[in-house]
């Protein structure tokens, strides 16, 4: 019986730890956007053509945060 309780506790702790990954992904997205902005302010005329690249970069950085979100979801509802 105590093993079940410990497993339930571990589940929630694990989901909380996985949520740290979302925060790390937020740092990554901030890096992408910040570096884009600093580059865009140096050469504003070239910035408009690179917005698609910006969003692709953000999407890839965000994908890794989504995996930690997925791990949290799996721990909460599937395990």
């Amino acid at each position: 019986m105590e093993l079940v309780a410990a497993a339930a506790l571990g589940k929630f702790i694990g989901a909380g730890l996985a949520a740290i990954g979302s925060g790390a992904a937020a740092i990554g997205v901030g890096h992408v956007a910040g570096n884009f902005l600093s580059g865009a302010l140096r050469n504003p005329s070239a910035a408009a053509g690179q917005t698609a690249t910006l969003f692709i970069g953000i999407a890839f950085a965000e994908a890794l945060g989504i995996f930690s979100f997925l791990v949290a979801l799996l721990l909460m509802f599937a395990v």
Partner: protein
Amino acid sequence: MAEQSANQTGGIAKVVFFAVLALVVISGLLFAPEHVGLAIHPMDQFEIKALFGGERLGTFTPTNETLWMALAVVAIVLVMVLGTRGRAVVPSRSQSVAEMAYGFVYKMVEDVAGKDAIKYFPGIMTLFMFIVFANFLGLIPMSFAPTSHIAVTVVLAGLVFFFVTILGFVKNGAGFLGLFWVSSAPMALRPVLALIELISYFVRPVSHSIRLAGNVMAGHAVIKVFAGFAGALGLFSFLPILAISAVYALEVLVAFIQAYVFTILTCVYLKDALHPSH
């Protein structure tokens, strides 16, 4: 004179604002629930219900999910078909919306996927319009966001994944496998990189679908969480309105950006299928 009337309208606006605020606070106090506390159920809004009663949900049961997806399709038809009916040189409002959407997606496909991907523009346009309309209709209060369900987005992303993979093999034959063989890397590293590329290829539909569903679901849940705080705040129960307004404005932005990201990633995958060389 003009200044005076401007002052007058400003004064009226102020009075109306404070009257509404007082009304909200008083009604919050009068109709406060018996159990004041944190009774937040942010995930209840995503529950799929049958439209015409009945507990069992079959494959063809009309639900609120299918209703709002159908409404999105109807809205797209109204904007695109009725909007472009006039074909005026100086476009009406609905015609210019339709033209802007068309031009926006066309330019995106041309820029990201290349000139020879224009053949697949109708499919990408359909995908973009469906996601945008489903997202925006889901933002109407008391409505239902179909894209908040992974079951819906995984179908869209799976469709893109299988289409792109089959297209890559049809167009390039075995040359499509060159996508995984990084020819610019040193020979010793290539098998390792091929493994990593292979994993990242099969992870694409996962991140592609969960990104859209996760963002829409999280946004709606946050709005509901802020609404749930109102019960605990008593006299200050009007404060969540400000927070919800701010989050709602952000969600309008997110609804568009996520549709844009979904479409642009589709274009990137399409480009990989058409030109697989690294």
